[in-house]
Protein backbone atom coordinates (compact mmCIF):
# COMPACT_ATOMS: atom_id res chain seq x y z
CA UNK A 1 0.00 0.00 0.00
CA UNK A 2 2.62 2.49 -1.10
CA UNK A 3 1.01 5.93 -1.39
CA UNK A 4 1.69 7.58 -4.79
CA UNK A 5 2.17 11.26 -5.57
CA UNK A 6 -0.92 13.44 -5.60
CA UNK A 7 -2.85 11.41 -3.04
CA UNK A 8 -2.14 13.65 -0.08
CA UNK A 9 -1.94 17.41 -0.54
CA UNK A 10 1.40 19.24 -0.47
CA UNK A 11 1.29 20.87 3.02
CA UNK A 12 0.47 17.63 4.81
CA UNK A 13 3.08 15.76 2.77
CA UNK A 14 5.59 18.31 4.03
CA UNK A 15 4.44 17.84 7.64
CA UNK A 16 4.66 14.05 7.26
CA UNK A 17 8.12 14.52 5.75
CA UNK A 18 9.21 16.46 8.83
CA UNK A 19 7.77 13.76 11.11
CA UNK A 20 9.51 11.03 9.11
CA UNK A 21 12.83 12.91 9.11
CA UNK A 22 12.56 13.35 12.87
CA UNK A 23 11.79 9.66 13.35
CA UNK A 24 14.75 8.65 11.19
CA UNK A 25 17.05 11.06 13.06
CA UNK A 26 15.96 9.67 16.44
CA UNK A 27 16.35 6.10 15.13
CA UNK A 28 19.84 6.80 13.79
CA UNK A 29 20.81 7.99 17.25
CA UNK A 30 19.11 5.07 18.99
CA UNK A 31 20.52 2.46 16.61
CA UNK A 32 24.02 3.84 17.02
CA UNK A 33 23.62 3.56 20.77
CA UNK A 34 22.53 -0.08 20.42
CA UNK A 35 24.94 -1.22 17.73
CA UNK A 36 27.85 1.26 17.73
CA UNK A 37 29.82 1.18 14.52
CA UNK A 38 28.20 -2.14 13.65
CA UNK A 39 25.07 -0.11 12.72
CA UNK A 40 25.79 0.29 9.02
CA UNK A 41 26.52 -3.32 8.07
CA UNK A 42 23.95 -4.88 10.41
CA UNK A 43 21.09 -2.48 9.63
CA UNK A 44 21.99 -2.71 5.95
CA UNK A 45 21.86 -6.50 5.96
CA UNK A 46 18.59 -6.52 7.90
CA UNK A 47 17.17 -4.04 5.36
CA UNK A 48 18.27 -6.40 2.60
CA UNK A 49 16.54 -9.21 4.52
CA UNK A 50 13.29 -7.22 4.76
CA UNK A 51 13.57 -6.46 1.07
CA UNK A 52 14.09 -10.14 0.22
CA UNK A 53 11.44 -11.49 2.56
CA UNK A 54 8.87 -9.20 0.94
CA UNK A 55 9.44 -11.26 -2.21
CA UNK A 56 8.73 -14.55 -0.42
CA UNK A 57 5.26 -15.62 -1.53
CA UNK A 58 2.89 -17.28 0.90
CA UNK A 59 0.15 -19.11 -1.00
CA UNK A 60 -3.28 -18.48 0.53
CA UNK A 61 -5.60 -20.54 -1.63
CA UNK A 62 -5.82 -21.58 -5.26
CA UNK A 63 -3.88 -19.00 -7.22
CA UNK A 64 -3.72 -16.17 -4.68
CA UNK A 65 -0.77 -15.48 -2.45
CA UNK A 66 0.39 -12.81 -0.07
CA UNK A 67 3.67 -11.57 1.23
CA UNK A 68 5.06 -10.20 4.45
CA UNK A 69 5.15 -6.42 5.05
CA UNK A 70 7.88 -6.87 7.62
CA UNK A 71 7.39 -3.87 9.92
CA UNK A 72 6.37 -5.88 12.96
CA UNK A 73 8.92 -8.59 12.21
CA UNK A 74 11.78 -6.08 11.99
CA UNK A 75 10.69 -4.35 15.21
CA UNK A 76 10.59 -7.62 17.15
CA UNK A 77 13.80 -9.05 15.69
CA UNK A 78 16.13 -6.04 15.74
CA UNK A 79 14.40 -3.51 17.97
CA UNK A 80 12.40 -0.38 17.24
CA UNK A 81 15.25 1.96 16.27
CA UNK A 82 16.97 -0.35 13.83
CA UNK A 83 13.55 -1.53 12.66
CA UNK A 84 12.41 1.99 11.73
CA UNK A 85 15.74 2.59 10.00
CA UNK A 86 15.56 -0.60 7.94
CA UNK A 87 11.97 -0.08 6.81
CA UNK A 88 12.68 3.58 6.00
CA UNK A 89 15.71 2.67 3.88
CA UNK A 90 13.69 -0.01 2.09
CA UNK A 91 10.92 2.52 1.38
CA UNK A 92 13.43 5.14 0.22
CA UNK A 93 15.06 2.74 -2.20
CA UNK A 94 11.69 1.47 -3.43
CA UNK A 95 10.61 5.06 -4.07
CA UNK A 96 13.75 6.12 -5.92
CA UNK A 97 14.60 2.93 -7.77
CA UNK A 98 11.33 1.14 -8.38
CA UNK A 99 9.01 4.17 -8.44
CA UNK A 100 6.97 2.28 -5.85
CA UNK A 101 5.43 5.06 -3.76
CA UNK A 102 5.71 8.71 -4.74
CA UNK A 103 8.74 10.83 -3.87
CA UNK A 104 6.61 13.55 -2.30
CA UNK A 105 4.63 10.88 -0.44
CA UNK A 106 7.83 9.41 1.01
CA UNK A 107 7.18 11.13 4.33
CA UNK A 108 3.66 9.71 4.51
CA UNK A 109 4.91 6.24 3.56
CA UNK A 110 7.68 6.24 6.15
CA UNK A 111 5.36 7.60 8.84
CA UNK A 112 2.62 5.07 8.16
CA UNK A 113 4.54 1.93 7.25
CA UNK A 114 7.85 2.53 8.97
CA UNK A 115 7.02 4.42 12.13
CA UNK A 116 3.49 3.37 13.10
CA UNK A 117 3.76 -0.37 12.39
CA UNK A 118 7.15 -0.67 14.04
CA UNK A 119 6.35 1.32 17.16
CA UNK A 120 2.89 -0.21 17.67
CA UNK A 121 4.25 -3.73 17.19
CA UNK A 122 7.21 -3.19 19.49
CA UNK A 123 5.22 -1.57 22.31
CA UNK A 124 2.59 -4.32 22.13
CA UNK A 125 5.20 -7.06 22.04
CA UNK A 126 7.10 -5.68 25.03
CA UNK A 127 3.90 -5.09 26.95
CA UNK A 128 2.61 -8.60 26.32
CA UNK A 129 5.88 -10.36 27.10
CA UNK A 130 6.02 -8.42 30.36
CA UNK A 131 2.55 -9.66 31.33
CA UNK A 132 2.65 -13.21 29.97
CA UNK A 133 4.76 -15.96 31.56
CA UNK A 134 8.35 -15.94 30.36
CA UNK A 135 8.22 -18.78 27.85
CA UNK A 136 8.86 -19.22 24.16
CA UNK A 137 5.19 -19.83 23.50
CA UNK A 138 4.17 -16.50 24.99
CA UNK A 139 6.77 -14.76 22.81
CA UNK A 140 5.11 -16.32 19.77
CA UNK A 141 1.66 -15.29 20.99
CA UNK A 142 2.91 -11.75 21.64
CA UNK A 143 4.42 -11.59 18.15
CA UNK A 144 1.08 -12.71 16.71
CA UNK A 145 -0.91 -10.03 18.53
CA UNK A 146 1.69 -7.33 17.82
CA UNK A 147 1.68 -7.99 14.08
CA UNK A 148 -2.10 -8.40 14.01
CA UNK A 149 -2.69 -4.96 15.51
CA UNK A 150 0.15 -3.15 13.74
CA UNK A 151 -1.27 -3.49 10.22
CA UNK A 152 -4.78 -2.07 10.91
CA UNK A 153 -3.14 0.61 13.07
CA UNK A 154 -1.13 1.70 10.03
CA UNK A 155 -4.32 1.68 7.95
CA UNK A 156 -6.10 3.81 10.55
CA UNK A 157 -3.18 6.25 10.61
CA UNK A 158 -3.33 6.51 6.85
CA UNK A 159 -7.05 7.24 7.10
CA UNK A 160 -6.33 9.97 9.63
CA UNK A 161 -3.75 11.52 7.29
CA UNK A 162 -6.23 11.23 4.44
CA UNK A 163 -8.93 12.90 6.52
CA UNK A 164 -6.70 15.90 7.13
CA UNK A 165 -4.93 16.20 3.80
CA UNK A 166 -6.64 13.94 1.27
CA UNK A 167 -7.08 15.48 -2.17
CA UNK A 168 -10.60 14.09 -2.61
CA UNK A 169 -13.48 14.30 -0.13
CA UNK A 170 -14.39 10.66 0.19
CA UNK A 171 -16.51 10.21 3.32
CA UNK A 172 -13.95 9.32 5.94
CA UNK A 173 -16.23 6.72 7.49
CA UNK A 174 -16.19 4.77 4.23
CA UNK A 175 -12.41 5.09 3.88
CA UNK A 176 -11.89 3.93 7.45
CA UNK A 177 -14.21 0.95 7.07
CA UNK A 178 -12.65 -0.11 3.80
CA UNK A 179 -9.04 0.43 4.87
CA UNK A 180 -9.30 -1.15 8.29
CA UNK A 181 -11.51 -3.97 7.00
CA UNK A 182 -9.07 -4.98 4.28
CA UNK A 183 -6.08 -4.53 6.54
CA UNK A 184 -7.50 -6.65 9.33
CA UNK A 185 -7.49 -9.50 6.80
CA UNK A 186 -3.95 -8.66 5.70
CA UNK A 187 -3.01 -8.32 9.36
CA UNK A 188 -4.14 -11.87 10.13
CA UNK A 189 -1.84 -13.25 7.44
CA UNK A 190 0.97 -10.96 8.59
CA UNK A 191 0.41 -12.07 12.19
CA UNK A 192 0.56 -15.80 11.40
CA UNK A 193 3.72 -15.46 9.32
CA UNK A 194 5.40 -13.11 11.81
CA UNK A 195 4.61 -15.37 14.76
CA UNK A 196 5.90 -18.46 12.94
CA UNK A 197 9.06 -16.67 11.83
CA UNK A 198 9.78 -15.24 15.28
CA UNK A 199 9.17 -18.70 16.74
CA UNK A 200 11.63 -20.20 14.26
CA UNK A 201 14.32 -17.65 15.14
CA UNK A 202 13.77 -18.03 18.89
CA UNK A 203 14.15 -21.80 18.55
CA UNK A 204 17.60 -21.44 16.99
CA UNK A 205 19.11 -18.13 18.11
CA UNK A 206 17.00 -16.66 20.94
CA UNK A 207 19.74 -14.10 21.56
CA UNK A 208 19.06 -12.52 18.16
CA UNK A 209 15.44 -11.66 18.96
CA UNK A 210 15.87 -8.16 20.29
CA UNK A 211 12.48 -7.79 21.95
CA UNK A 212 12.73 -11.18 23.70
CA UNK A 213 16.20 -10.86 25.17
CA UNK A 214 14.83 -11.00 28.69
CA UNK A 215 13.18 -14.32 27.91
CA UNK A 216 16.38 -16.42 27.82
CA UNK A 217 16.41 -18.90 30.66
CA UNK A 218 19.16 -18.22 33.18
CA UNK A 219 22.21 -20.46 32.88
CA UNK A 220 22.12 -23.35 35.36
CA UNK A 221 25.02 -25.58 36.33
CA UNK A 222 24.68 -29.13 37.57
CA UNK A 223 26.85 -29.32 40.66
CA UNK A 224 26.80 -32.66 42.50
CA UNK A 225 23.59 -33.64 40.77
CA UNK A 226 21.76 -30.47 41.80
CA UNK A 227 20.93 -27.57 39.46
CA UNK A 228 22.27 -24.28 40.76
CA UNK A 229 22.29 -20.84 39.22
CA UNK A 230 25.51 -20.01 37.47
CA UNK A 231 27.33 -17.06 39.01
CA UNK A 232 26.50 -13.91 37.14
CA UNK A 233 29.20 -12.73 34.80
CA UNK A 234 31.07 -9.65 35.93
CA UNK A 235 29.12 -6.68 34.62
CA UNK A 236 30.84 -4.97 31.76
CA UNK A 237 31.77 -1.35 32.40
CA UNK A 238 28.77 0.75 31.58
CA UNK A 239 28.96 2.25 28.13
CA UNK A 240 30.08 5.81 28.35
CA UNK A 241 27.19 8.16 27.97
CA UNK A 242 27.34 10.12 24.80
CA UNK A 243 28.00 13.80 25.12
CA UNK A 244 24.90 15.92 25.56
CA UNK A 245 25.15 18.93 23.24
CA UNK A 246 24.28 17.16 19.98
CA UNK A 247 21.19 15.54 21.52
CA UNK A 248 20.26 18.91 22.86
CA UNK A 249 20.55 20.37 19.37
CA UNK A 250 18.12 17.81 18.00
CA UNK A 251 15.72 18.56 20.84
CA UNK A 252 15.98 22.31 20.34
CA UNK A 253 15.46 22.05 16.59
CA UNK A 254 12.45 19.80 17.02
CA UNK A 255 10.94 22.07 19.63
CA UNK A 256 11.41 25.18 17.52
CA UNK A 257 9.95 23.40 14.49
CA UNK A 258 6.93 22.30 16.50
CA UNK A 259 6.34 25.79 17.82
CA UNK A 260 6.71 27.33 14.38
CA UNK A 261 4.35 24.79 12.85
CA UNK A 262 1.78 25.14 15.60
CA UNK A 263 1.94 28.90 15.95
CA UNK A 264 2.80 30.19 12.52
CA UNK A 265 1.42 27.64 10.11
CA UNK A 266 -1.90 27.26 11.87
CA UNK A 267 -2.11 31.04 11.54
CA UNK A 268 -2.46 30.49 7.82
CA UNK A 269 -4.22 27.16 7.88
CA UNK A 270 -7.71 26.98 6.51
CA UNK A 271 -10.44 27.58 9.03
CA UNK A 272 -12.92 25.32 7.22
CA UNK A 273 -14.10 22.34 9.25
CA UNK A 274 -12.10 19.15 8.79
CA UNK A 275 -13.42 16.22 6.76
CA UNK A 276 -14.93 14.31 9.63
CA UNK A 277 -16.77 17.34 10.97
CA UNK A 278 -17.91 18.08 7.47
CA UNK A 279 -19.30 14.60 6.94
CA UNK A 280 -20.98 14.85 10.31
CA UNK A 281 -22.54 18.15 9.37
CA UNK A 282 -23.62 16.91 5.95
CA UNK A 283 -25.23 13.78 7.25
CA UNK A 284 -26.78 15.66 10.12
CA UNK A 285 -25.63 13.32 12.84
CA UNK A 286 -23.74 16.02 14.66
CA UNK A 287 -26.94 17.46 16.04
CA UNK A 288 -26.85 14.96 18.89
CA UNK A 289 -23.16 15.31 19.58
CA UNK A 290 -22.80 16.56 23.09
CA UNK A 291 -20.48 19.40 23.79
CA UNK A 292 -17.05 18.10 24.60
CA UNK A 293 -16.30 18.08 28.29
CA UNK A 294 -13.47 20.52 27.76
CA UNK A 295 -15.52 22.84 25.58
CA UNK A 296 -15.52 25.46 28.27
CA UNK A 297 -11.76 25.38 28.67
CA UNK A 298 -9.85 28.45 27.57
CA UNK A 299 -8.34 26.50 24.64
CA UNK A 300 -11.58 24.99 23.31
CA UNK A 301 -11.78 24.61 19.54
CA UNK A 302 -8.11 25.52 19.15
CA UNK A 303 -8.51 29.20 19.96
CA UNK A 304 -7.60 31.32 22.95
CA UNK A 305 -10.52 33.00 24.70
CA UNK A 306 -10.54 36.78 24.84
CA UNK A 307 -8.25 37.05 21.83
CA UNK A 308 -10.28 38.66 19.09
CA UNK A 309 -8.45 37.84 15.88
CA UNK A 310 -9.32 34.19 15.09
CA UNK A 311 -6.02 33.55 13.30
CA UNK A 312 -3.88 34.99 16.07
CA UNK A 313 -5.92 33.10 18.60
CA UNK A 314 -5.51 29.82 16.67
CA UNK A 315 -1.75 30.33 16.48
CA UNK A 316 -1.54 31.10 20.20
CA UNK A 317 -3.55 28.00 21.03
CA UNK A 318 -1.19 25.93 18.91
CA UNK A 319 1.86 27.28 20.71
CA UNK A 320 0.29 26.70 24.12
CA UNK A 321 -0.74 23.18 23.07
CA UNK A 322 2.79 22.30 21.97
CA UNK A 323 4.16 23.71 25.20
CA UNK A 324 1.79 21.63 27.29
CA UNK A 325 2.53 18.49 25.28
CA UNK A 326 6.26 18.99 25.66
CA UNK A 327 5.88 19.56 29.41
CA UNK A 328 3.77 16.44 29.94
CA UNK A 329 5.92 14.36 27.57
CA UNK A 330 9.20 15.34 29.21
CA UNK A 331 7.67 14.70 32.63
CA UNK A 332 6.71 11.15 31.66
CA UNK A 333 10.08 10.58 29.98
CA UNK A 334 11.95 11.87 33.02
CA UNK A 335 9.94 9.69 35.38
CA UNK A 336 10.54 6.60 33.24
CA UNK A 337 14.25 7.30 33.06
CA UNK A 338 14.47 7.75 36.80
CA UNK A 339 12.84 4.35 37.27
CA UNK A 340 15.13 2.72 34.77
CA UNK A 341 18.22 4.01 36.50
CA UNK A 342 17.02 2.34 39.67
CA UNK A 343 17.22 -1.15 38.10
CA UNK A 344 20.76 -1.17 36.73
CA UNK A 345 22.32 -4.54 36.01
CA UNK A 346 20.13 -6.24 33.44
CA UNK A 347 20.40 -3.68 30.67
CA UNK A 348 24.19 -3.69 30.91
CA UNK A 349 24.33 -7.48 30.77
CA UNK A 350 22.17 -7.80 27.69
CA UNK A 351 23.84 -4.83 26.04
CA UNK A 352 27.31 -6.32 26.24
CA UNK A 353 26.65 -9.14 23.83
Amino acid sequence: MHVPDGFIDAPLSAVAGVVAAGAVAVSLRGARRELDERTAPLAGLVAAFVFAVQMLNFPVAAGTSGHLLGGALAAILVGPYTGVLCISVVLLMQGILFADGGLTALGVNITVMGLVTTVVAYVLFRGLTAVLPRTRRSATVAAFVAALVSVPAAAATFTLIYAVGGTTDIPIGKVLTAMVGVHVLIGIGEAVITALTVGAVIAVRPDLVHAARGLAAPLKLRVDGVLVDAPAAAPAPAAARRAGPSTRNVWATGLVAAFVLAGFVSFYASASPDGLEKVAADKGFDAEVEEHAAAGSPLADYGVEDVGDPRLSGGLAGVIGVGATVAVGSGVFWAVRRRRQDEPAEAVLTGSR
Partner: protein
Amino acid sequence: MGAGHAHKLYRHAHSPVHDLPPHCKLAAVFGFVLVVVSTPREAVWAFALYAVLIAAVAAAARIPAGFLLKRLVIEVPFVAFAVLMPFVVPGEQTEILGVSVSVPGLWGAWNVLAKGTLGVAASVVLASTTELRSLLLGLQRLRLPPLLVQIASFMIRYGDVIAGEMRRMSIARRSRGFEARGVRQWGVLAKSAGALFIRSYERGERVHLAMVSRGYTGTMPVIDEVTASRAQWAYAGALPLLALAICLLGWTL
Protein backbone atom coordinates in the same frame (compact mmCIF):
# COMPACT_ATOMS: atom_id res chain seq x y z
CA MET B 1 27.85 -9.68 -5.35
CA GLY B 2 29.89 -8.99 -8.51
CA ALA B 3 28.49 -7.96 -11.85
CA GLY B 4 29.24 -4.30 -11.27
CA HIS B 5 26.22 -3.82 -9.03
CA ALA B 6 24.20 -2.58 -11.98
CA HIS B 7 20.52 -2.95 -11.27
CA LYS B 8 18.23 -4.25 -13.92
CA LEU B 9 16.32 -0.98 -14.07
CA TYR B 10 19.39 0.89 -15.29
CA ARG B 11 19.79 1.29 -19.04
CA HIS B 12 23.38 1.78 -19.95
CA ALA B 13 23.86 4.49 -22.53
CA HIS B 14 25.69 7.74 -23.12
CA SER B 15 23.39 10.70 -23.24
CA PRO B 16 23.28 14.21 -21.82
CA VAL B 17 20.94 12.96 -19.10
CA HIS B 18 23.21 10.04 -18.18
CA ASP B 19 26.17 12.38 -17.87
CA LEU B 20 24.56 14.77 -15.39
CA PRO B 21 25.84 14.54 -11.82
CA PRO B 22 23.47 12.41 -9.71
CA HIS B 23 22.63 15.00 -7.09
CA CYS B 24 21.53 17.46 -9.80
CA LYS B 25 19.24 14.80 -11.23
CA LEU B 26 17.82 13.87 -7.81
CA ALA B 27 17.12 17.50 -6.95
CA ALA B 28 15.58 18.12 -10.37
CA VAL B 29 13.26 15.10 -10.14
CA PHE B 30 12.23 15.97 -6.60
CA GLY B 31 11.53 19.58 -7.55
CA PHE B 32 9.57 18.48 -10.60
CA VAL B 33 7.37 16.08 -8.60
CA LEU B 34 6.80 18.72 -5.93
CA VAL B 35 5.66 21.21 -8.57
CA VAL B 36 3.38 18.64 -10.22
CA VAL B 37 1.73 17.79 -6.90
CA SER B 38 1.00 21.42 -6.11
CA THR B 39 -0.60 22.15 -9.50
CA PRO B 40 -4.39 22.70 -9.36
CA ARG B 41 -6.15 19.71 -10.87
CA GLU B 42 -8.50 21.86 -12.93
CA ALA B 43 -5.57 22.93 -15.15
CA VAL B 44 -5.76 19.85 -17.36
CA TRP B 45 -3.55 21.35 -20.06
CA ALA B 46 -0.73 21.83 -17.51
CA PHE B 47 -0.50 18.08 -16.95
CA ALA B 48 -0.32 17.52 -20.69
CA LEU B 49 2.61 19.94 -20.81
CA TYR B 50 4.28 18.11 -17.90
CA ALA B 51 3.92 14.85 -19.81
CA VAL B 52 5.54 16.50 -22.84
CA LEU B 53 8.43 17.66 -20.61
CA ILE B 54 9.00 14.16 -19.24
CA ALA B 55 8.78 12.69 -22.73
CA ALA B 56 11.38 15.21 -23.91
CA VAL B 57 13.75 14.21 -21.09
CA ALA B 58 13.18 10.53 -21.85
CA ALA B 59 13.93 11.18 -25.50
CA ALA B 60 17.12 13.05 -24.60
CA ALA B 61 18.10 10.07 -22.42
CA ARG B 62 17.33 7.66 -25.30
CA ILE B 63 14.83 5.67 -23.26
CA PRO B 64 12.41 3.85 -25.58
CA ALA B 65 8.76 4.68 -24.99
CA GLY B 66 7.88 1.00 -24.59
CA PHE B 67 10.35 0.61 -21.71
CA LEU B 68 8.93 3.65 -19.93
CA LEU B 69 5.33 2.51 -20.40
CA LYS B 70 6.10 -1.01 -19.19
CA ARG B 71 7.57 0.37 -15.98
CA LEU B 72 4.44 2.42 -15.32
CA VAL B 73 2.61 -0.84 -14.55
CA ILE B 74 3.77 -0.50 -10.92
CA GLU B 75 0.91 1.97 -10.49
CA VAL B 76 -1.88 -0.50 -11.20
CA PRO B 77 -3.15 -0.98 -7.60
CA PHE B 78 -3.81 2.70 -7.23
CA VAL B 79 -5.42 2.91 -10.65
CA ALA B 80 -7.99 0.44 -9.32
CA PHE B 81 -8.56 2.73 -6.34
CA ALA B 82 -8.91 5.75 -8.63
CA VAL B 83 -11.44 3.94 -10.81
CA LEU B 84 -13.60 3.36 -7.72
CA MET B 85 -13.60 7.03 -6.73
CA PRO B 86 -16.31 8.35 -9.09
CA PHE B 87 -18.71 5.80 -7.62
CA VAL B 88 -18.17 6.30 -3.90
CA VAL B 89 -17.66 10.05 -3.63
CA PRO B 90 -20.89 11.92 -2.90
CA GLY B 91 -21.74 15.12 -4.72
CA GLU B 92 -23.10 16.37 -7.99
CA GLN B 93 -23.89 13.48 -10.33
CA THR B 94 -23.38 13.28 -14.05
CA GLU B 95 -24.02 10.65 -16.74
CA ILE B 96 -21.18 8.95 -18.58
CA LEU B 97 -22.10 6.12 -20.96
CA GLY B 98 -25.38 5.76 -19.12
CA VAL B 99 -23.72 5.28 -15.73
CA SER B 100 -24.24 7.85 -13.01
CA VAL B 101 -20.93 9.04 -11.53
CA SER B 102 -20.06 11.95 -9.27
CA VAL B 103 -18.23 14.98 -10.56
CA PRO B 104 -15.92 15.50 -7.52
CA GLY B 105 -15.09 11.79 -7.72
CA LEU B 106 -14.06 12.13 -11.34
CA TRP B 107 -11.87 15.10 -10.47
CA GLY B 108 -10.33 13.14 -7.60
CA ALA B 109 -9.62 10.15 -9.83
CA TRP B 110 -8.08 12.40 -12.48
CA ASN B 111 -5.99 14.13 -9.81
CA VAL B 112 -4.54 10.87 -8.44
CA LEU B 113 -4.02 9.33 -11.87
CA ALA B 114 -2.34 12.35 -13.46
CA LYS B 115 -0.06 13.25 -10.56
CA GLY B 116 0.76 9.62 -9.69
CA THR B 117 1.62 8.73 -13.28
CA LEU B 118 3.83 11.79 -13.74
CA GLY B 119 5.62 11.01 -10.46
CA VAL B 120 6.23 7.40 -11.45
CA ALA B 121 7.44 8.46 -14.90
CA ALA B 122 9.90 10.93 -13.39
CA SER B 123 11.25 8.27 -11.00
CA VAL B 124 11.57 5.77 -13.84
CA VAL B 125 13.59 8.23 -15.92
CA LEU B 126 15.84 8.88 -12.92
CA ALA B 127 16.36 5.18 -12.15
CA SER B 128 17.05 4.19 -15.74
CA THR B 129 19.67 6.89 -16.29
CA THR B 130 21.54 6.72 -12.98
CA GLU B 131 23.72 3.92 -11.67
CA LEU B 132 23.12 2.71 -8.14
CA ARG B 133 26.52 3.75 -6.89
CA SER B 134 26.19 7.28 -8.19
CA LEU B 135 22.62 7.48 -6.91
CA LEU B 136 23.93 6.81 -3.41
CA LEU B 137 26.73 9.33 -3.90
CA GLY B 138 24.13 11.85 -5.02
CA LEU B 139 22.06 11.21 -1.89
CA GLN B 140 25.18 11.78 0.19
CA ARG B 141 25.89 15.04 -1.65
CA LEU B 142 22.35 16.15 -0.88
CA ARG B 143 23.21 15.93 2.85
CA LEU B 144 21.38 12.72 3.65
CA PRO B 145 22.99 11.48 6.90
CA PRO B 146 26.10 9.45 5.94
CA LEU B 147 24.99 6.58 8.17
CA LEU B 148 21.69 6.33 6.29
CA VAL B 149 23.55 6.31 2.97
CA GLN B 150 25.84 3.56 4.29
CA ILE B 151 22.85 1.47 5.36
CA ALA B 152 21.24 1.98 1.96
CA SER B 153 24.45 1.02 0.17
CA PHE B 154 24.79 -2.15 2.24
CA MET B 155 21.17 -2.99 1.51
CA ILE B 156 21.69 -2.51 -2.23
CA ARG B 157 25.01 -4.34 -2.22
CA TYR B 158 23.76 -7.39 -0.33
CA GLY B 159 20.18 -7.39 -1.62
CA ASP B 160 21.12 -9.75 -4.43
CA VAL B 161 23.15 -11.96 -2.07
CA ILE B 162 20.24 -12.37 0.34
CA ALA B 163 17.78 -12.89 -2.50
CA GLY B 164 20.18 -15.52 -3.87
CA GLU B 165 20.22 -17.30 -0.50
CA MET B 166 16.44 -17.27 -0.53
CA ARG B 167 16.38 -18.76 -4.01
CA ARG B 168 18.82 -21.51 -3.02
CA MET B 169 16.68 -22.34 0.02
CA SER B 170 13.67 -22.55 -2.23
CA ILE B 171 15.51 -24.91 -4.59
CA ALA B 172 16.57 -27.03 -1.60
CA ARG B 173 12.96 -27.21 -0.37
CA ARG B 174 11.63 -28.20 -3.77
CA SER B 175 14.33 -30.78 -4.38
CA ARG B 176 13.08 -32.49 -1.21
CA GLY B 177 9.57 -32.70 -2.56
CA PHE B 178 8.12 -29.62 -0.90
CA GLU B 179 5.43 -27.72 -2.70
CA ALA B 180 3.71 -24.67 -1.22
CA ARG B 181 0.03 -25.10 -1.92
CA GLY B 182 -1.79 -23.25 0.82
CA VAL B 183 -1.89 -22.07 4.39
CA ARG B 184 -0.70 -25.43 5.73
CA GLN B 185 2.74 -24.93 4.23
CA TRP B 186 3.22 -21.56 5.94
CA GLY B 187 5.13 -23.14 8.80
CA VAL B 188 7.88 -24.37 6.51
CA LEU B 189 8.06 -21.07 4.63
CA ALA B 190 8.20 -19.10 7.88
CA LYS B 191 11.04 -21.33 9.12
CA SER B 192 12.86 -20.47 5.91
CA ALA B 193 12.28 -16.78 6.58
CA GLY B 194 13.64 -17.23 10.10
CA ALA B 195 16.70 -19.03 8.79
CA LEU B 196 17.14 -16.28 6.23
CA PHE B 197 17.10 -13.67 8.99
CA ILE B 198 19.71 -15.55 11.01
CA ARG B 199 21.92 -15.92 7.95
CA SER B 200 21.53 -12.24 7.06
CA TYR B 201 22.32 -11.09 10.59
CA GLU B 202 25.34 -13.36 10.90
CA ARG B 203 26.56 -12.23 7.50
CA GLY B 204 26.24 -8.67 8.77
CA GLU B 205 28.44 -9.54 11.74
CA ARG B 206 31.04 -11.17 9.47
CA VAL B 207 30.98 -8.22 7.09
CA HIS B 208 31.52 -5.89 10.02
CA LEU B 209 34.49 -7.90 11.29
CA ALA B 210 35.99 -7.97 7.81
CA MET B 211 35.61 -4.22 7.58
CA VAL B 212 37.09 -3.62 11.02
CA SER B 213 40.10 -5.75 10.10
CA ARG B 214 40.63 -3.42 7.14
CA GLY B 215 40.54 -0.30 9.28
CA TYR B 216 36.85 0.66 9.38
CA THR B 217 36.05 3.07 12.20
CA GLY B 218 32.46 3.97 11.46
CA THR B 219 32.77 6.13 8.37
CA MET B 220 33.42 5.24 4.78
CA PRO B 221 36.07 7.17 2.89
CA VAL B 222 34.65 9.03 -0.08
CA ILE B 223 36.95 8.27 -2.99
CA ASP B 224 35.02 9.58 -5.95
CA GLU B 225 33.72 12.99 -4.93
CA VAL B 226 31.17 14.15 -7.49
CA THR B 227 30.93 17.82 -8.24
CA ALA B 228 28.63 19.75 -10.49
CA SER B 229 29.48 22.80 -12.54
CA ARG B 230 27.11 25.72 -12.79
CA ALA B 231 26.23 24.73 -16.36
CA GLN B 232 25.23 21.24 -15.23
CA TRP B 233 23.03 22.66 -12.48
CA ALA B 234 21.40 24.96 -15.00
CA TYR B 235 20.87 22.05 -17.36
CA ALA B 236 19.27 19.90 -14.67
CA GLY B 237 17.29 22.84 -13.33
CA ALA B 238 15.58 23.34 -16.67
CA LEU B 239 13.03 20.59 -15.93
CA PRO B 240 11.70 21.81 -12.56
CA LEU B 241 11.90 25.50 -13.59
CA LEU B 242 9.88 24.93 -16.76
CA ALA B 243 7.43 22.91 -14.68
CA LEU B 244 7.25 25.73 -12.13
CA ALA B 245 6.42 28.20 -14.90
CA ILE B 246 3.61 25.91 -16.09
CA CYS B 247 2.37 25.52 -12.52
CA LEU B 248 2.27 29.30 -11.94
CA LEU B 249 0.40 29.72 -15.22
CA GLY B 250 -2.00 27.02 -14.05
CA TRP B 251 -2.71 28.92 -10.85
CA THR B 252 -3.21 32.29 -12.51
CA LEU B 253 -5.24 31.21 -15.57
